[in-house]
């Protein structure tokens, strides 16, 4: 209904190959970015920003990471939590040794360490496929979780056994640590997420993205076409872990501000992010945002929304209902639309384009 496509023709291949060929889609994206960068900071309260928007962006980034390996390359990974942990600790160590360097550099750099470890645990993916591969990443999850607790060097021998986020400045404004305001933290993380999404989109729409999807859809045919499976899978694991690492670093430095490390990067975190990718939509970047939004906002609404409107809800029962709801949602989505919210979004766009005709 909103689309007026006639008259939009392409004179060059680069125009034809752009991610959003239709003017209406480009306008849509511009609006979303405007809302995120201007409207939300102005209207949203500090509470809304720090408990809804920042976590949503962190989870979206982590979900994007997992989607690269599970959604685009078809390799199940249950180690997301641990890889995020690696990113967080790497960033912590880097900023303790070189405090002068702006923190954003280290947040991005920390991804490199988790990418290395991700690739390492991706090695078995050549010989084993499907469920079996989940074991390799589970091994990573438990092993790394064990390291985070057992190796004090990682958390600088702090008594609390966890990362204590130091205050770091950018251009005189405190970005991390207790004095940093939610607003600045929101802008920093928004910048990181937008940049990383753009990079992911570039890579996934190019040769590398096609190789990932080829390996996902029919790895035998991909191999016979000259795509070497191991390097492609390792690259997928590395890229995925890079994104998870950065997500971990942003979680610790821009959101938690030094919470207890062990529960942040445990197996449950891996499950939650896997659910986000499933419900959001395997193999779609916009799906990550949908999944993260849905699975993060429901618990927050339950904890704070319901009591606010008078329904007494003890902390524990909220937790239980949250479990029930998340589990129910997963099954519901898998039945209604196995490809998740992203496919529903795509279908609605398609419906609008062929309006008033049936899709």
């Amino acid at each position, binding site marked *: *209904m909103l*689309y*007026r*496509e*006639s*008259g*939009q*023709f*392409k*004179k*060059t*291949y680069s*125009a*034809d190959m752009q991610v959003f060929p239709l003017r209406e889609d480009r306008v849509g994206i511009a609006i979303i970015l405007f809302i995120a960068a201007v409207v939300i900071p102005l209207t949203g309260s500090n509470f809304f920003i720090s408990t809804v928007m920042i976590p949503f962006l962190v989870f979206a980034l982590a979900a994007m990471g997992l989607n690269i390996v599970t959604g685009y390359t078809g390799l199940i990974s249950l180690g997301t939590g641990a890889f995020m942990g690696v990113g967080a600790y790497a960033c912590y160590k880097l900023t303790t040794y070189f405090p002068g360097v702006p923190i954003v550099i280290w947040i991005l750099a920390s991804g490199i360490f988790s990418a290395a470890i991700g690739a390492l645990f991706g090695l078995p993916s050549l010989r084993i496929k499907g469920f079996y591969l989940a074991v390799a990443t589970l091994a990573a999850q438990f092993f790394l979780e064990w390291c985070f607790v057992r190796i004090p060097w990682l958390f600088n021998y702090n008594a609390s056994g966890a990362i204590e986020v130091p205050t770091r400045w950018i251009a005189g404004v405190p970005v991390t640590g207790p004095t940093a305001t939610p607003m600045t933290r929101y802008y920093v993380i928004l910048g990181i997420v937008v940049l990383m999404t753009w990079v992911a989109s570039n890579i996934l729409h190019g040769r590398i993205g096609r190789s990932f999807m080829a390996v996902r859809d029919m790895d035998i045919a991909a191999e016979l076409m000259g795509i070497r499976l191991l390097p492609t899978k390792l690259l997928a694991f590395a890229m995925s872990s890079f994104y998870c690492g950065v997500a971990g670093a942003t979680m610790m430095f821009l959101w938690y501000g030094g919470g207890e490390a062990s529960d942040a990067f445990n197996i449950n975190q891996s499950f939650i992010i896997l659910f986000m990718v499933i419900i959001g939509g395997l193999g779609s970047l916009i799906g990550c945002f949908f999944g993260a939004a849905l699975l993060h906002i429901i618990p927050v609404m339950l904890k704070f929304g319901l009591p606010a409107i008078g329904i007494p809800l003890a902390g524990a029962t909220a937790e239980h209902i949250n479990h029930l709801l998340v589990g129910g949602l997963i099954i519901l989505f898998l039945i209604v639309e196995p490809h998740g919210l992203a496919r529903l979004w795509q279908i609605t766009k398609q419906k609008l384009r*062929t*309006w*008033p*005709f*049936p899709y």
Partner: protein
Amino acid sequence: MEQDASAALDTFPKWLAHQAHARPSRPGMRHKDLGIWTEWSWAEVAQNVRAYALGLMAHGLQRGDRIAIIGNNRPKLYWSMMAAQSVGAIPVPVYADSVADEMAYVLEHAEVKFACVQDQEQVDKILSVSDRLPNIAFVFYDEPRGLRAYDHSRLQAIEEVIAQGKGLMLADPEANRRLDAEIARGTGEDISVILYTSGTTGRSKGVMLSAGRCIAAARDTVAFDGLSDRDNVLAYLPLAWVGDHYLNYAQALIAGFCINCPESPETAVEDRREVGNTYAFAPPRVFEGMLTRIMIRMEDASWLKRKLFHYYMGVAKLWGEKILDGKPVPVLARLNYAIGELLVYGPLKNVMGLTTVRVGYTAGEAIGPELFSFFRSIGLNLKQLYGQTEAFLFVTCQKDDGVRADCVGPATPNVEIRIAEDGEVLYKSPGQFVGYYKDPEKTAETMTPDGFVKTGDAGFFEKDGQLRIIDRAKDVGRLKSGALFAPKYIENKLKFFPNIREVVAFGQGEEFVTVFLNIDLVAVGNWAERNNVSYGSYQELAGHPQVYDILAGHVAEVNRQLAEEPMMARAQVHRFLILHKELDADDGELTRTQKVRRGFIADRYASLVKALYDGSTEADISTEVTFEDGRKGVISARVKVMDATVAPVAAMPQAAE
């Protein structure tokens, strides 16, 4: 549009040079190829055409030679026309989908010396009849696909000819002057093109059109509709049809707007949507197809969409045309229509690629009034024009504000129209043809002593000065009772229903009117599928009793409409039958532009026509058919004949003469 002293521009090559000079960077031509639209500015088009002309001269093309153009709408074929005219040669476009021997007759009749064709398929056709074409010196092809192994002594790629021309241009400056001299030698009296009309009776005739007259006619209509170089047109009609030559060639060169060539006939609809043409021209058959597609797809839509669609179609029916014509409309209705524009008409036009159409014409055949007003009511500025090849198209055309469904408009500027006593329409226009090529008697036959051209169509002027075409002059007949019998008028009314694809009416000198009906396989097939009616073949579906009932309903409805019109009330359809096979151009039952060849059908299905009039309820028929790959076969069937319900005729005086 330039009003400067362009009287000197009396041939198309001169106009091309003018455009290249006046608007060098404006887009002249676009072609969707290999996934993207390649664009040539007017300067580049002129550049290529000049090189191409030099290349052709190098191959011995002289002034006055005929050069055939065979293929779909592709830039290189349009350039072939321009290049030929630059040298003073005469392009002869031929229908790409005509069978080898049809093409042979035209090429032989026009004594064609060269041929520019699209691809291997056309080259094979020419080679298969080369024995009948001794004087073909060279054939040039656009798509090299599969032709590498052919003997290239008399065969060459157009690309190479252009390259040769470019080489000549650089090597010898004298060549440029020689070409300019040739172009300058061209005058208004030169024959700029010979268009073979798909005559509904007998062999097609070669209509010679002179450059000066074509340009004069084109300039009038460019001014009439205010066409400018901001416009866009999608060239998808056959090259050999006057519609394409007028709109996509003559008017483009005069107004300087951009010609867009689609990737292939199959992707034309999608390409139209992409390029967003602002000036559209299509025979009624195309609009019929569009309407049928809309109706069928809407039936499959969800309940809400259907409800919304039908409600706003109602609103459009009431106010649509009035708003388009700028007539006074209550504010509330205008608001409601605006919502409809957002929800239904806008998206509908968008999906059909009509959003950006500023001016739309339909011609070639009379269009059913309901079909015409449907498109106008959703905001498409569709107008009627009446014309024919001999007039270089325009005879009458409607102004933006003077649009009526059942008339074809007043005379085009500078055109005089006279109605002969037997009702035939005569005209004298700046663009009329010089004569039929190598056929002086036929030319004399169609001209009146005082220089008017006989159209062969019967019609009369309405009170508001708009011409109303009844039918082919020779087809308009009288029933035994003396009542007027206009077969086309009745056929168009029946063809408005999506389920009916083609109609042939009979009644000349008979008691009453009877019709053959052809079902539309897509529409009726869709209905069958939804009501799970099983059918094995087209023939079985056509003979299905339920289909007969549906079509009987349609005939009854048309009879009711005819009953309300005094002239037509006594020409209602009394009996009808559904043909067991689709009328097809390959079997000679239709012309290349899908017009019914009434005489041919009458004697081919004589047994059925007899059954219609001798009261029998069914009749056997077996006809010879040519399949797609040329094999011949025989189809025989037993066809049911049914009586139609005739509406009561209000007592009225004897038909006014």
